[in-house]
Structure formats: structure tokens, C-alpha cells
């Protein structure tokens, strides 16, 4: 079974702001960019306590600046794009730690582009952002 966690910053997200500035320079009508680190764990059905373990690994979650949320859906939300490695080879450890009951770990970056009304930008603008900036197809893939 897969469990999916999203990690967002509770402090200003400099990377998202830099992405916003570059996308604006590229002419994409975006007013705000949000970003999340998405961690997916393939776990044994009997696994217990994963959330507490994940929350304790500072590489993933620093409680001073991150919010950790478990998601029920294991793919991009509507309007969201996930950038993943093209080969998508899973890791078996996180920060050198083997996690009990975890068989594989994958990491993605979730992006969401919002217009000045707070709605997701039109799909063609999201596609343009992915093709020109958010994804390098030489080693990454965009998941919708």
C-alpha cells in the first residue's frame, strides 16, 4: 500500500517565489505559486506509526518551518502538477535511515499556479510553464 505525505513551508517559500518571478518573466499570467514536497512510501499493510516517524525526520519535516499533511489521493490534485525523476527509481532509505515497514520511498515536487482571482491558471498556461521551466524532460517527467 502507498501512503502519501505533503510537506509545505509555514514560512515564506523562497523557491516558489523565485519560480513565480521566472514564470512571470516568461509571460505566464500567474499571481501566486505554491509548492509542496510530496513523499510517497510503499509500506507493509501491517505498518504502524509512519506519520510519527516521518514527522521526526528533519530531512523531510522540520516542525519549526514545515507543515506535514497526509493525503488520501496518491496523485496530483486538480490543477496541480508533480515533477518526478524520469527513471523514478525508488529509494529504500531516507537520510540514511531505513524506516520500519517501508519498502520504497519516492519524492516529487508539487506545483500549483494561481491567477489573480486565486483560481488555477488555465491548463494551457500550466502546460507552457511545465514545458519552458518547471520540468526538464531530459531527466524529469510531469505528472498530472
Amino acid at each position, binding site marked *: 500500500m502507498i501512503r502519501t505525505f505533503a510537506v509545505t513551508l509555514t514560512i515564506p517559500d*523562497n*523557491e516558489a517565489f*523565485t519560480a513565480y518571478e521566472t514564470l512571470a518573466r516568461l509571460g505566464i499570467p500567474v499571481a501566486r505559486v505554491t509548492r509542496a514536497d510530496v513523499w510517497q512510501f510503499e509500506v507493509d499493510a501491517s505498518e504502524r506509526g509512519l506519520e510519527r516517524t516521518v514527522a521526526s525526520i528533519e530531512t523531510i519535516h522540520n516542525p519549526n518551518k514545515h507543515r506535514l499533511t497526509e493525503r488520501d489521493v496518491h496523485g496530483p490534485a486538480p490543477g496541480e502538477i508533480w515533477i518526478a525523476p524520469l527513471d523514478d527509481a525508488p529509494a529504500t532509505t531516507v537520510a540514511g535511515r531505513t524506516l520500519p515497514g517501508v519498502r520504497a520511498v519516492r519524492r516529487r515536487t508539487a506545483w500549483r499556479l494561481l491567477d489573480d482571482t486565486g483560481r488555477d491558471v488555465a491548463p494551457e498556461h500550466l502546460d507552457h510553464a511545465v*514545458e*519552458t*521551466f*518547471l520540468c*526538464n524532460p*531530459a*531527466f524529469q517527467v510531469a505528472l498530472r
Partner: protein
Amino acid sequence: MNPRVAVLVFPGTNSEDETVRALRAVRLDAELVHWSQPEALHGFEAFVLPGGFAYEDRIRAGAVAAHDALMDRVIDAAQDGKFVLGICNGAQILAEAGLVPGTGPLRRPTAAFAPNASGHYQSQHVFVRLAVAPERVPILGGIEPGEVIPAWASHGDGRLAAPAHELARIAAAHLAFVYCDRAGRPVDAHNGSALNCAGLVNADGNVLAIMPHPERDAWTFQHLDADPHAVRAGAAEALAPSGGIAFFECFARAVLAEAVI
């Protein structure tokens, strides 16, 4: 008067001073040009993008800088045939800008210097060998066939990655440098780079991207086998240019030959 060479500085660039020093040692008039002054990027004979972590490697190594206003002018200059050299982070920027291998549209990269196979930053001394015929790299005037250059690899994202068909094109015409030992024999790339790639060149041979830093092994005291006593004593031979400076001498020959002064 020596040819003027612009050394570009983005927020997060960290090797600009060593690069300027190496360029000046080979009689080039190197000047820093910062990201905030694209209008100053005029009248240069060549351009060098040094190492570092431009824009903190946000989004991807080199991705943000590749879209910077400063790069608009560098891309124009490259298309006009000017020499453009990228070292480490500069190489990543050139790949993200589509200038190397240069097989697709500008700013639509067909290859990448992607995260190392180890998944982390690595720093180690390496040797790289010219993997194309010298006439394919006019940016390195007078370089010898198979010349070996010592350098320091210092990156977390130096693994050449590209689709199989693109790797075939790179292997045929764009693979400028490969990792090797001191004698020029191939060694496995420490970072898992496809084709053992340490550097890429575009079709015209005027844009070169190299991942390891020759400017960090360009003086005798920087060599792995440097005599520590001579270094501490400040002996003249320890302070002399050698090793990786050969790379910059070739670059300078090319720039001097093309320069309109």
C-alpha cells in the same frame, strides 16, 4: 590591450574570483558582470559562466539563471559565434539554456546535468580528457588531441542525463570531455554521468560546458601532490601556474585569435 572577457555573476555564484584569476593569468582582461547589470554586458569578446549555485539551485540547477536577462545577451552572443564557456554551475546553466548540446530549441533543454547517482554532493580531484577532435572545439585553440586536464569536481548535479536517442547524438558529436585517469585512460565517472561525460560542446564548437573546475587546479600549490613545505614557505614554484591553467591557455589562444581589439 587584452581582449575583454565577461565573467557572469548570479546570486549564488561562488567561483568568480578564481575564474577571473585564471583568465587574467592567461592575458585576458576578465571583468565581473553581475545579474543586476545586463546593460553592462557589451563589448566583450567572450563570456564565462563560473561555478556556484546560481539562485540556490532553486527549481533545478541552472534553471532559473538560464532564464535570467543576463542570459538573453549571452545567448545572442553565442549565436553570433562568440565564445561561451561554462564551468560547473555555468555548465548546468548552458544545458538548461539549450546552448549545449544545442540540439533543440533555445531554453528547451535536450540534456541535463542531473543529480549525481549517489544522490548527494561530491567533491574530488579528477582528470578529464578531450574526447573530440581538436578542430571540433575552436573555443580551445591549440588543444592537443586527447589532452588531459586536471580539475576538481565539486557538484551535486553533474550526471549527464538525456533520452537514449539524444545520448547517441551527444556521443557522435557533442561529447567534449570524459573522465579519465592521469594517463588519459577512461575511468567510471564518480557521479554516474552517462557516456562518462565531463563536458559538452555545441555544433559550432564555440560553446563549451565543463563540469569539473580546472581553475581550482591551475596553480602548483593546488595540485594533489603539492609539496606542503614549499607551499608554506611561499616558494615561487609552488605559486606558479600549472596543471589546469593549460585549459585556460587554450581558451585564451582562441579568444586572442578571434578578438577585435
